[in-house]
């Protein structure tokens, strides 16, 4: 799957490109609006990541022009502006998602993958499995190695989110906005508390740890240490 990065800051473009390649994407980078439009016309991309402040032609104009030419590639907008109005403006211009700078790469990756999923409409699984941990989305039951685990609704939501992103790092901000649907940072350790409670139930009684803390970055659910 090929992703187009439209970003004039070389360092940002470079680390996003490297991260996406490690996650299995093929990546092209365009440093200005004109180059981005040329690329988008020549090649069908799975997702385009578009910075709003660009030389020659700004991001909103690029998106607008793409949509006019019938290019339906999902667009993730990157912007240094964080107000709700700016977000709305970006989405109205034809963007599909909006991420504010500075961002955690984990969050960018999760959003890119969500856009890909939405576009390809992969069949929805009914169970999620990581190692011997199984989560049944229909009956809302969780077992590990056959042992049933009793979870509170919020712990269930967090576990489902971690399992859907198994093997990928999930940041605290992502958890706050997904589990509590909060748009502002509550500046507190609510995530730590919820994660440690979940860990008590899914990891503590068992031999191998699945839920790992990545200091400074977030949490990841995976079978290898």
């Amino acid at each position, binding site marked *: 799957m090929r992703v187009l990065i439209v970003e004039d800051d070389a360092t940002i473009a470079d680390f996003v490109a490297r991260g996406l390649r490690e996650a299995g994407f093929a990546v092209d980078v365009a440093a200005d609006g004109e180059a981005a439009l040329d690329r988008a016309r020549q090649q069908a991309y799975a997702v385009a990541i578009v910075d709003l402040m660009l030389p020659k032609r700004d991001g909103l104009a690029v998106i607008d022009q793409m949509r006019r030419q019938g290019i339906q590639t999902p667009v993730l907008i990157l912007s240094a502006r964080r*107000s709700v109005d700016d977000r709305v403006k970006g989405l109205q211009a034809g963007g599909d998602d909006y991420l504010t700078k*500075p961002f955690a790469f984990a969050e960018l990756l999760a959003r890119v993958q969500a856009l890909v999923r939405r576009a390809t409409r992969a069949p929805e699984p009914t169970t999620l499995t990581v190692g011997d941990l199984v989560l049944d989305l229909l009956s809302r039951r969780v077992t590990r190695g056959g042992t049933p685990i009793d979870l509170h609704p919020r712990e269930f939501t967090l576990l489902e989110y971690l399992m859907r992103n198994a093997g990928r790092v999930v940041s605290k901000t992502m958890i706050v906005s997904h589990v509590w649907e909060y748009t502002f940072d*509550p*500046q*507190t350790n609510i995530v730590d508390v919820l994660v440690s409670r979940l860990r008590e139930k899914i990891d503590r009684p068992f031999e191998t740890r699945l839920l790992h803390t990545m200091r400074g970055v977030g949490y990841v659910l995976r079978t290898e240490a």
Partner: protein
Amino acid sequence: MTSGTSAASRPFHPAFGLRLALWYAALFVGGWAVVVFLTYWLTAASLAQRDHEILNAKLGQYAAAYERGGLRALTETVQAEQRTAPERLFVRVVDRGAEAIVLSQPEGWDLRRLEIASLSLMDGTLVQVGKSTAAREDLLARFRAVLGMVTLTVVLVALTGGFFVTRSAVRPIRRLTRAVARIISTGRTDERVPLTGDGAGDAIDELTRLFNAMLDKIEGLVTAMRGALDNVSHDLRTPLTRLRGTAEMALAATPDLDRCRDALADCVEESDRVLVMLNTLMDISEAESGTMHLRREALRLGDVVARAVDLYRDVADAKGIVLTAPTPADIVVVADGTRIEQVAANLIDNALKYTTAGGRVDVDVLADSSRARLRVRDTGAGIRPDELPHIWDRLFRGDSSRTERGLGLGLSLVKAIVEAHGGTVDVETEPGKGSVFTVALPRGEVPSKSAGQA
């Protein structure tokens, strides 16, 4: 005043002032002309009328004499009168045979300047009496001369008056223009236009007052923004110093993968903290300067607060603190729901931080006729009297809070958001026993939608 500002104000005034003065003079002189014309016309008409009445009276008298005693009696009457009367009249009798007999014609009279009245008698004789208009015209001529003099004076007065009136009317405008020009060229917003003081209620004073009020507003915004910028740049230096220091230490030490990873994790955490700090500082500045965009809507305060309580439920459980939510009530405020939730969350977060295991944090929503109140009570450490005045300051952290994580911005943000909503926030505290934070917001109407549901 600099030459630049006077040049900016010059093109407008003389043209405007001159036009105003000419209008004033034209109206004044026009009004005067109407008065003069009417006076002159009425005077002339009444003089003519008086002459006319005299002639008619004489005519009646002579006609009676003629009918009584014929031409002789008339001649006698005229001659007798001419001996006594001061003014001589022209008298002529024309009989049927068209023979004119002039009985009296004062010498040197110009017949064209005579006003003549005639009467036909029964036998066809025509009696004519004439009176000189010279005296009357002489009078009117003097009157015209006097009126001309007065009119000239009036025009002079009108022009002078117009000039002065215009000057005093334009002066405040000119002052206003000069002040604006000065402010534009210097960028100093602390300048104010002085009020004229004499006509306290007039339109120019009103304009001046409004203009000054606008300057107050602009100055307030500029000062707040400048202050915010200063504060933000100052407040960011400390975390950036930590960030730089951590990275530099790791680079200078002998290569060690674990230490490097630790340092990198520190750097990421520190930059996250910088970001949160920047966002919060911007929020505080925007709320304080009145530029925060509030999406106000009617909402039930209890519902909003309950969501914030829910957010901290797990944290309270983990710390062994009882956290109670407000009982549902139809207390409505018109406010930005997300911001008010942030206020509640910050107060609850704060209360939980300073309360130890076994304590309580009680959250209530109350109301009186005009205000809705959010109250957060804790059984925590309380606030020391010497620290109490500073708890709303940005980045203030009490001695006891230094061990807790946090930026020292929570209460500043609470205060800024609440005040942006036209509310107040107060604290009562007793060291060792706990604190009560109370937010009061203006009460809104219960929206018809929720009233229908209730």
